[in-house]
């Protein structure tokens, strides 16, 4: 049916594939936290201080919210009396079956309802994340995209020039790619913030500024942006440069380049050919490493106490705030999947080989 529109068919195929991956991610997100401990026990064990009666109300509302407890006709949690070692009767909520829990979870997730935060109750998980997502996107998207572009350009140059440039550049790039994100972030904080006081050590903007659409806020945010930006940018650029360098060396040894050189084609033009052909596997590489990059960048956010998802996750972990942990992991996975999908589509449009394959009816 879609034979006439090979590109569209390809896009639909990929979309279907990523939808499947998303569903698996949802299952993982549901199942893994239930591996170690029962969520009902966790909720019953939550103690955020204050009036015991209020605590009880909070716990019960959580059990209802997450579809964990059985409810009677009036929508109240059904209790089960348990006798413990001292012979004291305790009221324990009756659990729903695992299948029922799962359908509730999927249903609510698809509606965009991820429940409330334990720690910041009654704030919704989606609100907690809504505050953090813009910071993370503003930090990670440009660092990864620019890191990719600059890294590839330098890598191609190293492959083409070889000689001294390569001999200095390559070990440097290797060192940068080997430095863990958070280590590099810490070094930057230590020197540029603590020792030399050139940039702020933490936060996304100065503490005395109220976020809003004004010059003061954006100026402060840009100032706080410098160190986190460089700590992610340099490392992802280093990794890309290494990949591009070996791809470039490989391309330069191919017959078509030798032939072009022999024909006297201009250097810049040859470089362009090499770059174009070597870039595509690099794009695929980017798609594959996105997950690891985003993970590393999240840790970097924590080093800088940047108000993004990494920090939200760290706080949630410290407070055993399960709903937020699960929400953050789900949103990150979703973003990574969307980014991957975008790269796939880009490849389909950029790579003449994929296009030709599509038009011939292959996949």
């Amino acid at each position, binding site marked *: 049916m879609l034979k006439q529109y090979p590109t569209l068919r390809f896009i639909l195929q990929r979309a279907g594939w*990523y939808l*499947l*991956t998303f569903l*698996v*991610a949802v299952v*993982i*997100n549901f199942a*893994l*936290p*239930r*591996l*170690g*401990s029962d969520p009902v026990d966790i909720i019953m064990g939550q103690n955020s201080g204050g009036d015991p009666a209020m605590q009880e109300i909070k716990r019960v509302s959580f059990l209802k919210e997450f579809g964990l407890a059985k409810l009677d006709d009036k929508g109240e949690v059904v209790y089960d009396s348990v006798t413990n070692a001292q012979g004291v009767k305790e009221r324990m909520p009756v659990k729903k079956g695992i299948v029922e829990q799962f359908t509730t979870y999927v249903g609510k997730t698809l509606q965009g309802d991820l429940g409330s935060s334990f720690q910041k109750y009654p704030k919704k998980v989606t609100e907690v994340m809504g505050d953090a997502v813009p910071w993370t996107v503003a930090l990670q998207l440009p660092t990864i995209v620019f890191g990719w572009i600059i890294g590839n350009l330098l890598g191609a140059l190293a492959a083409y020039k*070889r000689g001294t440039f390569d001999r200095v550049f390559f*070990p440097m790039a*290797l*060192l940068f*790619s*080997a*430095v*863990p994100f*958070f*280590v590099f972030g*810490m*070094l930057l*904080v*230590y020197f540029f913030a*603590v*020792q030399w006081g050139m940039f702020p*050590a*933490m936060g996304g903007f100065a503490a005395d500024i109220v976020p809003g659409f004004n010059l003061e806020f954006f100026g402060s945010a840009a100032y706080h942006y410098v160190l986190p930006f460089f700590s992610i940018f340099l490392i992802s650029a280093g990794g890309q440069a*290494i990949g591009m360098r*070996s791809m470039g*060396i*490989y391309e330069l*040894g191919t017959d078509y380049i030798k032939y072009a050189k022999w024909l006297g084609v201009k250097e810049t033009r040859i470089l362009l050919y090499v770059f174009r052909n070597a870039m595509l596997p690099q794009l695929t590489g980017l*798609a*594959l490493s*996105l*997950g*690891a990059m*985003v*993970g*590393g960048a*999240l*840790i970097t956010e*924590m*080093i800088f106490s940047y108000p993004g998802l990494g920090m939200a*996750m*760290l706080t949630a*972990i410290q407070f055993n705030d*399960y709903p937020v*942990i*699960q929400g953050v*992991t789900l949103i*990150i*996975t979703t973003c*990574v*999947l969307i980014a*991957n999908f975008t790269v796939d589509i880009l490849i389909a449009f950029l790579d003449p080989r994929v296009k030709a394959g599509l038009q011939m009816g292959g996949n």
Partner: protein
Amino acid sequence: MKILKNLLKSPMFVIGIGLFLGTLFLAFLGPLFANMSLDRVASSYAPPGDGLLLGADNLGRNYVALLLHGLRNSLYVGFLAGIIATTVGTLIGIYGGFKGGIIDDILSVTTNLFIVIPQLIVLILISASLKDGRSLTLIAVIIGATGWTWSARAVRAQSAALKSRDHIALARINGDGTFAILVKHILPYLASYVFMVFIIQIASGILSESAISMLGLGPMDTQSLGIILNDAKANGALGDGIWWGIFPSTILITTIVFSLYLINTSMEGVFNPRLRRE
């Protein structure tokens, strides 16, 4: 032997293996010379000096002892996770690539599914659910069990390419079963490749451990380079400019990972003649 000779000609390999052996020596011979006690011996964040080569942490514990414990544990986690990830990845990749058909499809789909879901996310979800009893070994097993995907993908491509070679067909005619062919005729071709995968898996195992330790979800009641770093950061070492709390462990992590990358890259250069320097 010839391979080793070629490798030793590469300065990158020599530096890499030198650094790596250096950290191994430090981890295993260091405890023979240093005082390994983790008792309080000084004031909080006592600076280096007074018999404390690298000062003390916020609890007044000797940093040299902490680092030696941590280094050994980090290496242990890295190796164990690396072995698990490489073994699982190689088995899945080699079998799927060679078998083809529906089995390959299933294995490939599974691999590709888990490749795009960030490993750190899965690690966080598992570790956060394990409230207690997160030992070094358990963390290593989890890292290994979640990190096999890309090695499976890489090995699969190699195995699939070997499948149609003549000597495989001859072995078939000879009556060899799948298992025998895999072990006798495919694995030897992939050995160097699998070894390179293993090197990278050790590095990523060490990195993963320190990453989740930085989140406070690492092994409990023990030391590792990531835990030392996390403790230092959580107790204000970074903001107060306590360099002896931050630098030694960061340098150790980076040295291990960098040396492993150097070894891997130099091996790639030897096995892939095109990358060799003229």
